[in-house]
């Protein structure tokens, strides 16, 4: 089942990237996508980690929220750089996600919002570096943590 989803994703990517729609090119696309799926299946890469489709139903909602956060923190990072009020701080936060993919998503989301960077990861604990105590408080309120746990949908 998951192989078919992977094949569908790969083949739609092929169609969008190529832009040529004659028999030769499309059949070459089908062959190479099928070969990729075969290799991935042989390497046992098609599991929840390689193809996290359990994210899909809530992904759009989460992405819209994330873009809003990125815009907001971009503005405040620009303000901090111009003002020069830099008081860096380092702290640890606990994570409440179950799967590794969700943890990676959470760490990536922290890093993607300017002003906070995940510097180290251990089981269930992230070490976060923030440019300012405002950015630090944003992470420490665990709002993003709750959102990612909701996105994961395993609890």
């Amino acid at each position, binding site marked *: 089942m998951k192989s078919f989803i992977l094949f569908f994703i790969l083949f739609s990517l092929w169609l969008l990237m190529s832009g040529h729609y004659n028999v030769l090119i499309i059949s070459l696309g089908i062959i190479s996508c099928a070969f990729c799926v075969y290799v991935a299946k042989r390497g046992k890469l098609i599991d929840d980690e390689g193809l996290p489709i359990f994210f899909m139903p809530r992904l759009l909602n989460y992405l819209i929220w994330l873009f809003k956060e990125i815009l907001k923190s971009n503005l405040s990072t620009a303000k901090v750089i111009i003002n020069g009020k830099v*008081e860096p701080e380092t702290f640890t936060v606990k994570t409440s996600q179950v799967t590794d993919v969700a943890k990676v998503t959470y760490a990536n989301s922290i890093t993607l919002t300017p002003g906070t960077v*995940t510097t180290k990861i251990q089981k269930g604990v992230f070490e976060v570096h923030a440019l300012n105590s405002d950015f630090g408080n944003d992470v420490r309120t665990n709002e993003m943590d709750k959102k990612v746990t909701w996105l994961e949908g395993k609890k």
Partner: protein
Amino acid sequence: MELILDIFTSICFFIGSLSIIIGACGLIKLPDVFSRIHAAGMIDTGGTAFFILGMIFQTGWSLITVKLILIGVFIFFTSPVTSHVTANLARQKNILPVGKKIGKML
């Protein structure tokens, strides 16, 4: 119609270049590696996002739009990884960030 799209593109390019300039200033101005990563992250997200948005206004609905969006998606997924690798390598080389530390460090 074309004029409106051109104006939107110019606004997007203006915001994008502004955030890249501010990010570049931050790269020079901020005190240590970890703080400079924040400025680089600003270039990665704000700069590229607005530039790609501006280019999308120029192309209209075509395959090139899809390719531009894909470029954005790949940068979106890869830029936090590079930021994290830089920060993690600095921590592994025992470079400690300046400023206060809350709780114990990992």
